[in-house]
């Protein structure tokens, strides 16, 4: 039989036993032209949390693709939004997906939200050598449901590149377009009617799409939303009962029925 893992249910220690290295630990000679992914955000609305991302990846002044998925389902009640270098971010997502499922299956219980949040912080710390070189930097957002609460509800967390984790009260944003998005959030949280936390699903969907449209006008690395060319965002809704994806047709319908369409 194989040896037991160093930490029961810990997939990373199992990988270490098999000498599988996740991230490069040594300095590299020259910096490649890195692919970057922006912009992502998440906010609380009346039904839960909406997490959104544009679909553009860039490398310097080049658009690599307008079809990237930046909002990733980690398990049935966890979402990860990636901003930064996709190569590292996708690997982190895969590690988290496998780690959470490995723990649930091997320990016969799901991982707590606190442990899921820390698992991502641990990966960011493990990526520190690459982050310090300016290569492979990832600044993600995480949303998960806390089932230890009396009424399980989704929560939003954001991170710094070194792995510090913070819980967001109303919203969080990351990536090159996040500055303009945070400004709009700050305005709407104070003066909006309704405020983002009071929006229903249709209003939240419409609000998220308009945020991305605005960010794309100010930031060339943020892909826009343009129904006429069938270009939409990735929108996922997290509630205590699971994850739902807002389809392209639902996004188109939300914009088509926008009473303020002419107001921009």
């Amino acid at each position, binding site marked *: *039989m*194989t040896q*037991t*893992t160093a930490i029961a249910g810990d*997939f990373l220690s*199992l*990988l270490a036993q*098999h000498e*599988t290295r996740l991230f490069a630990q040594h300095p590299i000679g020259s910096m490649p032209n890195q692919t970057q992914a922006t912009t992502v955000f998440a906010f609380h609305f009346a039904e839960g949390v909406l997490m959104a991302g544009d679909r553009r990846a860039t490398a310097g002044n080049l658009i690599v693709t307008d079809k990237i998925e930046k909002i990733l389902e980690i398990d*049935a009640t966890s979402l990860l939004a990636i901003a930064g270098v996709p190569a590292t971010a996708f690997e982190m997502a*895969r*590690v988290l997906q*496998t780690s959470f*499922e*490995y723990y649930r*299956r*091997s320990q*016969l219980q799901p991982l707590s939200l606190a442990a899921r949040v820390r698992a991502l912080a641990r990966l960011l710390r493990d990526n520190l050598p690459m982050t310090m070189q300016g290569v492979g930097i990832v600044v993600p957002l995480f949303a998960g449901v806390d089932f230890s609460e009396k009424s399980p509800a989704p929560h939003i967390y954001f991170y710094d590149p070194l792995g510090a984790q913070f819980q967001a009260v109303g919203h969080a944003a990351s990536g090159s377009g996040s500055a303009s998005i945070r400004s709009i959030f700050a305005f709407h949280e104070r003066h909006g009617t309704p405020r983002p936390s009071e929006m229903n699903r249709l209003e939240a969907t419409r609000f998220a799409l308009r945020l991305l449209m605005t960010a794309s006008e100010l930031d060339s690395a943020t892909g826009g939303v343009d129904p006429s060319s069938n270009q939409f965002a990735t929108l996922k809704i997290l509630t205590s009962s699971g994850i739902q994806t807002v389809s392209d047709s639902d996004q188109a319908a939300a914009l088509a029925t926008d009473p303020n369409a002419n107001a921009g």
Partner: protein
Amino acid sequence: MTDEPYRWLEAIANRRDYVREQLKGGSPAFAVSMPAGILLLGVGSGSSKVFELHDRHAMAGLGHPADIERIRQTAIDAAHIEAFTRAAQDVSLRRLVGFGLSAQVKQNFEQLFTAPVLGEFVFAELGDTPAHDHLVRLRFDGSFVTQSGGVCIVAPETEAESAAQEWLRREIESRTSLEAIADLLLQTWWCLKEGMSFPPTTPAESERQSGWKANLAGKTIEAALLRRQSSSVSRYETLVLNSEGLGIH
């Protein structure tokens, strides 16, 4: 003593008798391939018998709880390493059991100064259709048999297991619903536990039904379905089953 061939053969035979003696009284477990997926079922008294291994894989077994746990953990470790380093579609029972578990269980059995695995197992792999399902029966000595779809029983007595499997294979053809098949498995479980012979002296269905229901005191029915049609990556669903009926947990 083991450097003499005769002594070694004698020691192995003794060891086989010892393991069989230890497994006597174990509670049978079942795996059935059907259109809805693969149903795994066991009746436990304090320890679990049915487990999820990976997205499309599950196992059931009987024996010492520590050995069932050891096999389960080994299978889960191997499946997740395989899925992570390659892809989830590359996790297969053929490789998991044939190239991994079987050799380790055999080694444990034949190395006379190590503890043998006191357990018998069935592993299930969900395919796109019942014809592509795989069931693998792994024995305590490391030998295993693979079959495509159908029915697989894990029972402590080899002869009774074969007879029950043959009977169950015929009986199950007329049943389609999950509830009806689970009921039939529990009837078979009761017959095996009571040491009954299978045709022609099998008791009537009503007697078998009241038999399993009357014998549930202090025991828990464990059932799970590897569901064929599902939007979830993980196809394993725990079923809640008691003498009142079947529900999905």
